[in-house]
């Protein structure tokens, strides 16, 4: 019997599991995909919002500034890529300036630090590649970027280091309310737990439904993002936001943690909960809009594109809290800024669990720290030499576009990568302009050896995502 079963290994589930692993509790995370973070978590913009966007009377508005602040500590502990590069909300006409002022006031009321309105000249000096038709901007220095999949991986790995069980390829199919506990029936086994935390992203209403709850619904809203060639690195230094629209913060220019520029997302309601497709309309919308703000961005520089689903609830806010079923707790409707809020949500859920009667007793041997993955390409000569002396495989290049070495691939496998995407998200191999053309066979060789699986059984991301078949005569 577990104390807590977390359903869903996205960033929210992982953050909660990791937070709760500080206490003497039996915890399990149940994830239906091959690896954690393969849901919405790997397909978002990676922005740690400053917090001025969301209204203060919503739960997301309340958690966002706290979440943002918690990132410094979290990053120190877990060594994922995080950088506070700051954000600019840009105004294209005089009529938009009052909106900048409104956002500034809203932010200040919530405690967002350092908000400032910049005039045209200051904006041009700071971001010379933006269109010269922009007339002012709101600067929020505390906004930052992370690699979201790195965060999910680090959280789950640290949770596992601290005793949490992680079950992947394990989909929840039924939940039975028993006396004093809940029985979670999955595709592989039945798990008993006193508390179940529903962090199933776009499927959270389905999971709640399994427990007999029907008080909310989730409506997926798709966002398409377009990653641009590294030729454009450095084009903008900060996150660039337009004046927000009704449903979204609009289409953004995002210098990702690695410096590559990404543009998006769109906001399109859909009924298909697995719809990760990109569309002509989406790209037209993104590039049509972005080129007005930054004229040197064109569709031709796209190296890859993807889409993610925001789990928008019928209240348009987070739904976090206990339910009429004792022990069943929702962490649902976690749309943007869910990533930013993740560490704050974890604390919020901890307090809920406490008030629901869970006894929290701190572990003495909790290990908060996780060394980050080795990043050969970002080291100086001396550091590189030292690594190579320790391990010759640091001198064997596997991914040429991002300069990833074989030792880093092994490290990714050591840290849980089981698929090509798993390797990509941990080591960057396959993320560059050739999109795996060079490194995929090498990574497959390594996975095949390390996992002791035949070459043809290596997948892109688990399930039926096979890469090759055997030849007739072999």
């Amino acid at each position, binding site marked *: 019997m577990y104390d807590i079963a977390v359903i869903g290994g996205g960033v929210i589930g992982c953050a909660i599991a990791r937070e709760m692993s500080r206490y003497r509790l039996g915890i399990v995370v149940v994830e239906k995909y091959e690896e954690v973070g393969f849901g919405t978590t790997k397909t978002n913009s990676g922005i740690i919002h400053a917090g001025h966007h969301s209204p203060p009377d919503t739960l997301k508005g309340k958690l966002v500034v706290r979440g943002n602040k918690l990132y410094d500590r979290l990053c120190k502990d877990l060594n994922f890529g995080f950088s506070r590069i700051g954000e600019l909300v840009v105004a294209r006409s005089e009529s938009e300036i009052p909106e900048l002022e409104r956002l500034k006031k809203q932010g200040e009321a919530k405690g967002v630090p350092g908000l400032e309105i910049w005039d045209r000249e200051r904006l041009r000096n700071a971001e010379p590649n933006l269109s010269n038709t922009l007339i002012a901007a709101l600067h929020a220095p505390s906004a930052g970027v992370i690699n979201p999949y790195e965060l999910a991986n680090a959280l789950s790995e640290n949770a596992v280091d601290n005793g949490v069980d992680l079950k992947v390829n394990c989909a929840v199919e039924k939940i039975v309310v028993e006396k004093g506990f809940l029985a979670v029936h999955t595709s592989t086994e039945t798990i008993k737990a006193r508390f179940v935390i529903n962090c199933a992203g776009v499927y959270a209403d389905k999971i709640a439904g399994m427990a007999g709850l029907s008080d909310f619904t989730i409506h997926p809203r798709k966002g398409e993002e377009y990653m641009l060639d590294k030729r454009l690195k450095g084009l903008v230094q900060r996150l660039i936001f337009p004046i927000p629209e009704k449903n979204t913060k609009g289409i953004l220019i995002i210098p990702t943690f690695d410096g590559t520029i990404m543009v998006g997302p769109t906001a399109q309601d859909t009924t298909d909960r697995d719809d990760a497709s990109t569309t002509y309309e989406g790209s037209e919308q993104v590039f049509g809009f972005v080129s007005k703000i930054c004229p040197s961005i064109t569709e031709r520089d796209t190296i890859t594109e993807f889409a993610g689903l925001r789990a928008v609830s019928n209240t348009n806010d987070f739904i976090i809290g206990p339910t009429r079923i004792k022990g069943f707790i929702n962490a649902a409707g976690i749309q943007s800024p869910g990533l930013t809020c993740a560490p704050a949500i974890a604390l919020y859920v901890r307090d809920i669990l406490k008030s629901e009667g869970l006894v929290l007793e701190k572990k003495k041997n909790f290990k908060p720290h996780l060394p980050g993955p080795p990043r050969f390409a970002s080291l100086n000569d001396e550091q590189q030499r030292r690594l190579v002396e320790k391990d010759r495989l640091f001198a064997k290049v596997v991914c040429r576009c991002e300069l990833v070495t074989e030792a880093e691939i092994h490290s990714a496998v050591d840290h849980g990568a089981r698929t090509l995407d798993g390797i990509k998200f941990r080591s960057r191999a396959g993320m560059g302009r050739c999109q795996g053309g060079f490194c995929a066979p090498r990574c497959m060789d*390594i996975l095949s050896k390390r996992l002791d699986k035949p070459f043809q059984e290596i997948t892109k991301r688990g399930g039926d995502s096979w890469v090759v078949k055997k030849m007739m005569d072999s």
Partner: protein
Amino acid sequence: MIEIKKYICIGCPVGCPLQLEHEKDRIREVTGNECNRGAKYARQEFTDPRRSISTTVQISGALRQRLPVKVSGAIHKDQILEAARKIHELKVMAPVEIGQVLFKDFLGEKGIDVVACRSMKRIAEAMTACRTKKHRRSKAGKPE
């Protein structure tokens, strides 16, 4: 009865659309060609279309698992698929030298052999073993 067969000339990038007029097996005329090569090509295609073929076969004891091979002379077009299937029955052991004949008088035609397109050295078993042993590391070892 006069019939027409159509070809595209592969002699050069112009790719002339060729028309070959024939009565049964007798060629009457080739038209559409901008130069002589086109006419020659159409006649050859009509009377005895031939193709060269190359593929790979399994090899053991070498750095790679496949050895590229070719058929030393052009074979009749209709025999391509059959030839490919037949070549696949070959299994080769390293070492192999470039040009080495792996299958003599293939398809029963004299002088048309299956030959190796490259040399492959033998990699000692021991070396292959030590290569895999390097992999490695205690922590993940063999993940579940």
